[in-house]
């Protein structure tokens, strides 16, 4: 069992409200493929009208979860509800749910207009033409209505896939890696576009992605998934600033994790001993209860680099800042907006530091002796029973 902390995965949604009229509720949702458990007892409430992201590496079960909501996969155990309606075993075409497929899956023999009208026609909706025209305008596809999918660019196909789904005004819109096939520039543009459309139509969007930047840009709430379970759930900033697991700390952005032993627990502040024996402060609320060994974490951009003091003191803390005085720069790369350093601590660990180039600051060179400092409030602590590398290689492998 993976140790988990800091999240309560009962039926409380991102807004903290128990299921309202149109909320999507997953209860103990489990999917097994033979001996392999793809989704492991998922409990989740997604508030109506929110932009929710399921973030995780490939194989974490996020797409299987999506396919179960769409009805393309049957859960082994569990229940799916939208508001008061249970849809767990309903056929896909009986659910008020539409999907934007990863490969778009546009009907190649139908024009853009016919693709978009497909769902409305199946439901014998009135005023198909005007609804289609409205959505084509929203997605800026008016001029392309009579083209076939093969005559469109990747970005245009993506918009057709989106238009084809949102025209039905589903209770829940599912997006399966919708921007994965686009190049970086177009992807950024579509992120903004998707967010705008979501705000405009007010539908519940459930967005599956392995791209943490994409999830943070668009979603109101992110659930970080790993090995069929939710590691952590919360608003993007909350997840980033206060990761609850090493996996979340490494998968969302980058983290420095230093092995430490709890020295003192006080209601207002706690201190932990770093490998060199020096004590640094951690807000006591962030210290996992009842354990002695922790990973002390700090994000690379939260660390400041200073010229080294004369004396090689051990680590310490004063005036709301933690300090690591005796360190050596081993690598410096100038990136334009920032300089990225690798700095070796006295206990031979390399920490990553991103220093903003505000001008005026010294740029250190490899070999320079420096001291590091970071605010106590930017320091977090995780149970040391976890793998400090969790989520790193996955993120890199996926780019």
């Amino acid at each position: 069992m993976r140790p988990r902390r800091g999240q309560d995965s009962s039926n409380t949604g991102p807004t903290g409200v128990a299921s309202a009229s149109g909320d999507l509720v997953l209860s103990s949702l489990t999917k097994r493929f033979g001996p392999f458990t793809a989704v492991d007892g998922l409990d989740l409430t997604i508030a109506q009208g929110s932009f929710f992201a399921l973030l995780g590496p490939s194989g974490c079960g996020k797409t299987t979860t999506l396919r179960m909501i769409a009805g393309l996969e049957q859960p082994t155990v569990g229940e799916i509800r939208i508001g008061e309606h249970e849809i767990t075993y309903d056929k896909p075409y009986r659910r008020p749910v539409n999907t934007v497929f990863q490969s778009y899956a546009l009907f190649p023999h139908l024009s853009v207009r016919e693709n978009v009208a497909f769902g409305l026609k199946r439901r014998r909706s009135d005023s198909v033409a005007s609804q289609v025209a409205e959505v084509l305008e929203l997605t800026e596809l008016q001029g392309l209505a009579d083209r076939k999918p093969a005559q469109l660019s990747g970005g245009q196909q993506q918009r057709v896939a989106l238009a084809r789904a949102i025209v039905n005004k589903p209770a829940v819109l599912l997006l399966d890696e919708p921007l994965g096939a686009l190049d970086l520039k177009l992807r950024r543009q579509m992120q903004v576009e998707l967010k705008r459309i979501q705000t405009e139509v007010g539908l519940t969007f459930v967005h599956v992605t392995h791209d943490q930047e994409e999830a943070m840009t668009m979603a109101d709430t992110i659930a970080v998934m790993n090995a069929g379970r939710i590691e952590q759930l919360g608003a993007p900033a909350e997840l980033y600033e206060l990761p609850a697991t090493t996996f979340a700390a490494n998968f969302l952005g980058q983290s420095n994790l230093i092995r430490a032993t709890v020295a003192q627990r006080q209601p207002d502040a706690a201190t932990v001993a770093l490998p060199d024996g020096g004590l640094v402060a951690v807000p006591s609320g962030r210290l996992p209860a009842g354990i002695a060994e922790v990973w002390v974490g700090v994000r690379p951009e939260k660390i400041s680099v200073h010229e080294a003091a004369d004396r090689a003191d051990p680590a310490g803390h004063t005036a709301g800042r933690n300090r690591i005085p005796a360190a050596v720069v081993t690598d410096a790369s100038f990136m334009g907006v920032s300089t990225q350093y690798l700095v070796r601590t006295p206990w031979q660990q390399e920490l990553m530091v991103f220093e903003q180039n505000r001008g005026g600051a010294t740029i250190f060179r490899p070999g320079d002796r420096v001291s590091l400092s970071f605010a106590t409030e930017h320091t977090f602590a995780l149970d040391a029973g976890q793998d400090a590398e969790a989520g790193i290689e996955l993120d890199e492998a996926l780019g």
Partner: protein
Amino acid sequence: MTTTVGQRPAGAKPATIPARRRRSAWTVLRENVVWVVAALALVYLLLPNLVVVLFSFNKPNGRFNYTWQRFSLDAWLHPCAAPGMCESLSLSLKIGVVATVVATLLGTMIAFALARYRFHGRAGSNLLIFLPMATPEVVMGSSLLTLFVSMGIPLGRVTILIAHIMFCLSYVVVTVKARIAGLDPRLEQAAADLYANEWQTFRRITLPLVAPGIAAGALLAFSLSFDDYIVTNFNASNASITFPMYVWGAAARGTPVQINVIGTAMFVLAVLAVALGQLAGRRRSRAH
């Protein structure tokens, strides 16, 4: 290896003489060799057809249409003048149409079953479907004859039809199956996601996308049936002479010019069909 490539000692002359203004005959030939070969291949392919067309306008002396005598429209104006020919042509067309319809229907369903489902006996069915294509026609024809005779089924149109459906089926299954295999299953999932039930998904998405494969299978089946001589000959009676049998029989007694008329008509129809198809495809892709 220390050879340097693309570098010459300074001042050395280039190894090759600069291209001459005058192009030698060899250069011209070398640059156009693809066209020359293509033209020769076309001549090789089309010359027999041109001879057929040419001799449909012949007025032969005697019963054999083998030497050019003089131009005449007689055969074109009286295509059914050759005794028995139009009857055999109509029989071939009827058998062709019925065999095509039955083989296409059955074959499409079999193709879907084989491509989409895992069931007991699937591998065996796959093998059996291939068998008629691999069996020499003489063997197939004689085996069928043995079967029909031993079962006491009188030879005639029905036996010809059964035989034709059997071998056409294989070609339809293979053609349609290839098309289904190339079909993205996510399209059907997308249709289901967009409120189409099973039948609507099949009718609106699957069938239109597989249709080119079905059409190709049907055309193949028709041409195979229309053209078959060997299997047909084994399983026909004197009252069921198909067009290929008629032509074969006529070759012994004399060849009426009308055979060339039918041949020319078939050729022109086929070329027209292909040309129309190409034209439609080009217009569709140029539409925007």
